[in-house]
């Protein structure tokens, strides 16, 4: 079992877990009843999924170049995107949901289900 096979298997695991979280976030975005619930589903699971996918791709790139310097630099760039998105994703989620809350979007409660109020 050479090093390239190990890198490929690690990458496959990371990418498949990322895909799993992306699927969960998308189902939440489509199915949940109102804006804040959808934000809750997609904001967190998408961030984690991007993180997992980027870490997996950085590992694959480092293994594919046999740890030569140019490949390591590209891997560091990919890790930089991961760190940036780890900070930026929750910030964007927070900003957009705060704006919606101050604009008067009503959060969904259990009463909506019984009163058949217009879903927001």
């Amino acid at each position, binding site marked *: 079992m050479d090093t390239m096979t190990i890198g*490929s298997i690690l990458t*496959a695991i990371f990418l498949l877990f990322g895909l799993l979280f992306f699927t969960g976030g998308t189902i939440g*975005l*489509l199915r949940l009843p109102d804006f804040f619930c959808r934000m809750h589903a997609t904001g967190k699971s998408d961030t984690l999924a*991007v993180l997992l996918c980027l870490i997996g791709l950085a590992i694959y790139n480092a293994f594919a170049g046999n740890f030569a310097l140019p490949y390591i630099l*590209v891997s560091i760039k990919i890790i930089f*995107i991961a760190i940036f998105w780890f900070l930026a994703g929750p910030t964007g989620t927070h900003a*957009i949901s705060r704006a919606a809350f*101050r604009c008067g979007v009503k959060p969904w409660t259990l009463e909506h289900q019984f009163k058949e109020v217009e879903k927001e």
Partner: protein
Amino acid sequence: MIDMRQFFTGVSIALLFLAFLCLYRAIRGPFITNRIIGVGAIGTKTLIVLLLMGFIYDRVDMFVDISIVYALLNFIGTLAAAKYFEMKGEV
């Protein structure tokens, strides 16, 4: 030995399928706020698809820069929309 290029192609197709599902929320979703999060979700998926395209075409060093720019633009777009609606005071 796993053929990683085919695996990356499969993951890209799956992500594109999920992006099309998000497009439903971006087009139909009631009010502008739902559309913004739909577009944001498509943007995060495109970020990964761009990098996977780089691995498929063996040009990662170029595609990683495009991916960085895409991440920055997605973030700035979301923040700008949030700021606009907060100052406007209504959705």
